[in-house]
């Protein structure tokens, strides 16, 4: 990495501050709602957060919930970066989960090798479900929102048919046979460490995915191309970048990430697949990506936060009169505030400007004071020495470092 340019150090609104503002306002709105239905908001929040964090087992469950959201969030964020809206994460999750479940039932290998096969199966299943809309978009200009929604339902009904036909459980028609714990992503040391929670190896898959996606977007030529296509496909085309190929690749990677989310959900968090259920995480992931500003690290934190709300809401409902929908309302409100983040940006920029102006005035005052001091010093120094040029030096130096506010930009 090279040196960053010397810049005025100043306050600037950034994505983190905006996301934080959205979260705080969302929580406040939740509090108002709780108060409006006659509950005590403090009590409500206490149990909401305790439900997500109060002991090691619940923290484990929060992590397990966040795992799936993180991967879906990454999937949506990745597609966003290429200017695509992947609303088909649910379907990609289902297919990824189905592939993983099949592997879990039929493939028996040494654990490390098995895990590789398991992860790859989900990755490929999801990627397949993503690459089809990508191809339709590239080849026939079918809008990806339409295509991915269709793919969701194809996945939904495929699972509906496939599970009873080939993976039927011993008792119920509506869900697949449970896979053995040893064939799932759960692992003894993690389960023990978190006192029997659902947390599983998926969390490591998700974190590695965050790192890889960040690396691809920031450091590789592939990421460079994807972002260029996402921001201005006409310029990308002009520059010789194959726009259509990038659309396909982007949807394939996004689908693969959502497939991994299916893996962590169906063979980690749960151990079977129910039919007739469209996984809502596929849509919650859009929220995660939005709050995380489509940034992989942002997605990591926003998925942890949403994971906590999701896993805490049941406890809040059990312990207080606050219905669990309040947690969903808070999530919805946060999304609303994230979507209107331009307002926060304006607000924080305004604050920043006022602070900068104030500080500049202080600096100016300080400078004037220093100059005066320096002059007196210089004046004293000048007496014994011979020329004014020597005596002026100390005053310049003393002003130099203080006047960092202007940085030589205004030299006419």
């Amino acid at each position: 990495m090279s040196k960053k340019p010397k810049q005025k150090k100043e306050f600037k609104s950034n994505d983190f501050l905006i996301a934080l503002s959205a979260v705080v306002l969302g929580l406040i709105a939740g509090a108002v709602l709780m108060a409006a239905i006659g509950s005590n908001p403090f009590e409500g929040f206490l149990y909401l957060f305790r439900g997500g964090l109060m002991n090691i087992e619940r923290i484990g469950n929060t992590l397990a919930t966040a795992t799936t959201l993180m991967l879906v969030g990454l999937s949506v964020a990745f597609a966003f970066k290429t200017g695509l809206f992947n609303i088909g994460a649910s379907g990609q999750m289902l297919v990824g989960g189905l592939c993983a479940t099949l592997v879990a039932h039929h493939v028996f290998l040494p654990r490390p090798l098995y895990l590789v096969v398991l992860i790859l199966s989900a990755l490929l299943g999801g990627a397949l479900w993503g690459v089809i809309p990508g191809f339709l978009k590239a080849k026939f200009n079918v809008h990806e929102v339409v295509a991915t929604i269709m793919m969701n339902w194809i996945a939904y009904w495929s699972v509906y048919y496939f599970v009873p036909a080939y993976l039927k459980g011993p008792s119920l028609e509506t869900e697949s046979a449970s896979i053995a714990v040893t064939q799932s992503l759960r692992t003894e040391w993690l389960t023990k460490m978190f006192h029997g929670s659902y947390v599983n190896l998926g969390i490591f898959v998700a974190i590695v995915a965050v790192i890889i996606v960040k690396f691809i977007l920031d450091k590789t030529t592939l990421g460079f191309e994807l972002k260029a296509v996402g921001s201005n496909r006409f310029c990308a085309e002009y520059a010789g970048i194959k726009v259509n190929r990038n659309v396909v690749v982007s949807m394939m990677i996004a689908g693969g990430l959502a497939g991994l989310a299916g893996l962590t959900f169906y063979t980690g968090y749960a151990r079977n697949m129910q039919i007739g259920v469209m996984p809502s995480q596929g849509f919650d992931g859009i929220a995660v990506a939005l709050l995380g500003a489509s940034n992989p690290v942002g997605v990591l934190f926003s998925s942890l936060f949403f994971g906590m709300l999701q896993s805490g809401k049941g406890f809040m409902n059990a312990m207080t009169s606050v219905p669990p929908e309040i947690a969903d309302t808070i999530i919805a409100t946060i999304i609303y505030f994230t979507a209107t983040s331009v307002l926060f940006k304006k607000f924080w920029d305004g604050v920043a400007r006022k602070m900068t102006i104030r500080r500049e005035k202080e600096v100016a005052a300080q400078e004037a004071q220093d100059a005066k001091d320096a002059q007196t010093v210089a004046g004293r120094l000048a007496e014994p020495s011979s020329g004014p040029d020597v005596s002026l030096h100390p005053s310049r130096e003393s002003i130099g470092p203080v006047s960092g506010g202007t940085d030589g930009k205004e030299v006419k």
Partner: protein
Amino acid sequence: MPSKGVYSPMSHVIEMLHIRKEFPGIVANDDISLQVEQGEIHAILGENGAGKSTLMSILFGLYHADEGIIKVKGKEVKISSPNDATELGIGMVHQHFQLVHNFTVTENIILGKEGGFFLDRRNASKKIKALSEKYGLSIDPDMVIEDISVGMQQRVEILKMLYRDADILIFDEPTAVLTPQEIDELMQIMRNLVAEGKSIILITHKLDEIKAVADRCTIIRRGKMIGVVDVATTSQAQMAAMMVGRPVSFKVEKKTAQPGRVILDVHHLNVMNSKKVLGVKDFSLTVRAGEIVGIAGVDGNGQSELVEAITGLRPIESGAVSVAGTDVTHASIRARNEAGIGHIPEDRQKRGLVLNETVAANMVIKDYYHAPFSRHGLLKEDVIETYAKDVVKQFDVRSGEGIFSLAGKLSGGNQQKAIVGREMVADPQLLIAVQPTRGLDVGAIEYIHKQLVLHRDKGHAVLLVSFELDEIFNLSDRIAVMNNGELVDVVKTSETDEHEVGLLMAGVKGKEGAK
């Protein structure tokens, strides 16, 4: 230093006093004052990024000044949104038109001012027709925007302001997108407008336009006000010097060309345009190493299609294109770039830049994939940054945060300089420059013209497409004239004049037409 006679302060329709506006890293307006008299055309002259557009955005309520006051018709006002500005009778024709393309002229004009629940298109249309006739705009209110020319679209923007009873009209670089004829028409329209009592603020960096229509001119340089001059008594050279801060030469110094081997060979080319009819017809042209060939023609006569076909943005129906001996007729865009094509595109915001990427990324947008900018698919950021800094420095691209600024935050002229810099520094064997100095001030034009000649003198070929005859004549060694998709004739610049080329542009071929 207003040099016109004595006038009472009340005759000022607009006064902006001691305006200051700061952006992160840059002072866009530093104590600028502007006083516009009733019924005058007042030009604001300044280089790209000098702060002209910022000043006007403040007047139009898009930005808020950090310091300073605004008076309209003698009264101090606070303009916090374009709606406030409209209320005060201020209207603005933006550089990039704000029109709904599949609406008619009438619909566009009444948009936001429909009045009532039911649209009264008929009355509106009548009013628009009346206005159009009064000011000589010749607009048919029932035409759909996408079917009319750029010049007419601009007149629709003017009508929009008139419809809203604006009497102070701001024109933001209005001629940047116009053909010479359209420019003349616009000048006439402006004269009609002031004759009817309107006042006009004209933002531009084109001196001949100021000379042609403006009464007074406020000159801004790097965010500071340099002075106000009376246009009639000030020469173009004086104004240019005030604007740039040094004397500027308008003529390009160049030696006679020494054409070498053929670099671009276009052979019986046929290309479809967007309307699925032939936009380029049986077009053949060669450009040799060490020469600049200019393509003259009125906008829309197939120049865009020709350039897009050569650069690979548009498929070729029949014919062949080769670059430096490589046949690229069906090659990919990247293969063509690698064969040695550099391209300064016509539309800088659509094609030229990714606006929400950094300047650094934009500087390597064509070259990121190979050494030294990347290896094994990994970007080498330090190499990219050093390279970008170098280009930015060479071409004097000014921005708040240097190469880390988003391209979209640059002023239009600086965006253009960035593109020109990127294409020139890559040192292509064939440089296709489409309107390379569009939207630039004289200082930057001078620099880019010099660079184009230098590129030629290095032994490269340059194909120049411009709608400004001055530019074509200044730079070209040969001039190819296009009309209606066909090559009318190729003439040597030294053996022709603007009159002959003008006739050729109209499709009249041969010397006999000129006599």
